[in-house]
């Protein structure tokens, strides 16, 4: 115990969380299956820092980085994973009058779409989700949420031909949100899971204490798919998934419902709908946090699911844990996070890797 404590304290300094990665990744668009624009930004961020970099058959980005101080493999081979995709939409049809029909990719509340602005494709086309004005609606219609199948995007075209000169069927559609900051608040889209992507890109800027394979996975939001394939290829000894998770804070929410809180420090998962987190790994995260005086909080059990669920079941099984940044309003046009949280996640994960190098059997 005392020896472990000393070891925890002695480690090298963790790399810094790079906010510019978060900004670049958040502003890039990548609904599940169309992560290429995000992947390009990640490649740009990590290319010079890692030993090898590959795009697998599904589109996930896999980087290997050996520990500092030599080729000798020290400690367990750790897979760190964050997903690149976001919830979004795809253009499924163009109406005769030039309006676009869209279908959702991932879990989205239809109530946040009416009256919103979207980016369509990658050429800077904008579309607005118009709804009939209140003046022309009966009270009955006003109390009806427009389902996504009935929603349309107005890009300004008056005919199918006009529209098809600017967009194509299958174009990706993303919320038109720009990254911004005030106080310790950061606002942007797709913090689930661009914050994890940025944490991971920051972590690999320095040679880690143990062999690491970093995976920026595809298709998490449509069934934890990219990580499943990647984990089988990487075949790690254990895995830590880095996420942006939902804070439950809202007016009137109970203390319990409000957990985890934005700004409350790294959020550690005990259990969710996809995973029983590996207890030893979770305990080590807790111990490291305590030694480093990093505040942590628990994710509310029983809700959500992450790539860790798939990774844990891959091959002969992989002990897996999840460390998240608690964000408000994920899966919505704009989310919030507290910039202190991803900084602490980088620190916590780094020092946990150090501890793993010394303690993990």
């Amino acid at each position, binding site marked *: 115990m005392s020896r472990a404590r000393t070891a925890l304290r002695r480690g090298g300094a963790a790399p810094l969380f790079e906010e510019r990665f978060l900004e670049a990744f958040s502003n890039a668009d990548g609904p599940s299956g169309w992560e290429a624009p995000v992947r390009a930004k990640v490649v740009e961020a990590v290319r010079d820092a890692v030993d090898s970099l590959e795009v697998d058959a599904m589109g996930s980005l896999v980087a290997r980085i050996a520990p500092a101080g030599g080729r000798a493999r020290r400690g367990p081979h750790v897979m760190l994973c964050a997903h690149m995709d976001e919830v979004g939409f795809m253009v499924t049809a163009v109406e005769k009058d030039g309006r676009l029909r869209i279908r959702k990719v991932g879990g989205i509340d239809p109530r946040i779409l009416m009256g919103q602005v979207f980016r369509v494709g990658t050429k800077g086309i904008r579309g607005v989700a118009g709804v009939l004005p209140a003046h022309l609606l009966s009270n009955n219609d006003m109390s009806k*949420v427009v389902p996504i199948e009935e929603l349309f995007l107005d890009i300004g075209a008056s005919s199918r031909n006009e529209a098809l000169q600017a967009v194509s069927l299958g174009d990706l559609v993303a919320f038109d949100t720009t990254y911004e900051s005030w106080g310790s608040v950061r606002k942007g889209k797709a913090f689930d899971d661009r914050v994890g992507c940025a944490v991971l890109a920051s972590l690999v800027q320095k040679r880690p204490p143990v062999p690491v394979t970093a995976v920026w996975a595809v298709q998490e939001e449509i069934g934890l798919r990219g990580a499943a394939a990647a984990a089988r290829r990487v075949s790690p000894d254990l895995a830590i998934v880095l996420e942006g998770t939902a804070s439950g804070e809202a007016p009137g929410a109970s203390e319990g419902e409000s957990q985890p809180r934005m700004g409350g420090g790294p959020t550690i998962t005990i259990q969710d709908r996809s995973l029983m987190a590996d207890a030893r790994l979770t305990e080590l995260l807790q111990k490291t946090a305590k030694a480093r005086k990093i505040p942590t909080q628990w994710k509310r059990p029983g809700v959500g699911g992450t790539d860790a669920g798939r990774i844990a079941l891959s091959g002969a099984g992989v002990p897996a844990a999840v460390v998240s940044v608690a964000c408000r309003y994920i899966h919505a046009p704009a989310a919030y996070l507290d910039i202190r949280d991803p900084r602490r996640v980088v620190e916590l994960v780094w020092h946990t890797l150090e501890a793993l190098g010394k303690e993990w059997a």
Partner: protein
Amino acid sequence: MPRSNNKSTRRSGQADWSTDEWLRHLTALPGVAGHEHALVPEIEAAFRLFADKVERDRMGNVLGWIHGSGPSPRPRALLAAHLDRIGFLVSRIERGGFIRVVPVGGFDPRTLPGKEVVVHSKQPMVAIFGTKPPHLQKKGESEKVIPIEDLYLDTGYPEAVVKRRVPIGTLVMLRQPPVGLLKSRLAAPGMDNRSGIAVLVRTLQALRDRRPAWDVIAVGTVEEEDGQICLGARTSAEALRPEIGIAIDVSHGDMPGTREGDTVPLGGGPSICMGANIHPGVFDGLRSSARALGFPYSVEVTPASSGTDAMDIQIASVGVATGVLGIPCRYMHTGVEVVAPSDVDHCAALLSHYLVGLEPQWRATEVLK
């Protein structure tokens, strides 16, 4: 508050601006009903570029005068476009620093969750209408519209900061930089009725060079969106005693799902309204101008109420001969009101053609004997 996306908010209007630039500028300005003073300096600056005289009356209306070329005393034509826009007021701060608001004007609550707003505290703040992520929702929850009173704003700041910086009654406005669509169409909140203000600016610009016989007073009116009467229209018409009063406001642009007759085509030029609120002579005159110019236009039938400033202008003073011109606008009272700048241009051209053609001796009152 982070840097503004819209640089034009820091620059007053310029004489050589395109209509697109005017619309981007005007829609970015504040001015929730009852609080128009926040944008009055910008409107004065805009009118001053082209008007002979610019005044602000005691209600806060902004008046831009073009002196006519006819013999004195000259009849007056009043052009009214309302300055105010719909918005919210802060009603209370909840535990956790979440803000509740009451609407000023008619919002569709369905279009608000997830939207960004500006809270106009002394140091303005950005906030979001909070939403519950699907992960935490109960089954069926996503099918229920959230009424405005159950919505809340989140600035991300802690409760203490919010309580210190955001007094009850602070104004809140949708925050959506103008979005350029295909065919030069523009989406922004506040097109109702800043596009009408743009028509006034453009009309003053045209009349400066082609002077009408009549005096023309372009009025940016206060408080159209809130309350029982169109306050600024009523008071300015009472004070000015015009012979003719023309309201310029947005009309519903064509949208799928509407009935024939409820809308006018976007990009199809201004709509010329007819109905009880409109003097047949003014309607005829406006339509003749449209025909003479060969511009596209539509006729919009508004049988009883036109729902514009003209309702109050008509009954002001000893009665005023009124007209109503509409700028087609889709998705009214949402954050994405869409207008075609060409419709604004055509509306201003039509209006100035009509005003220049007014006979010096025309009077609304017919003397029969």
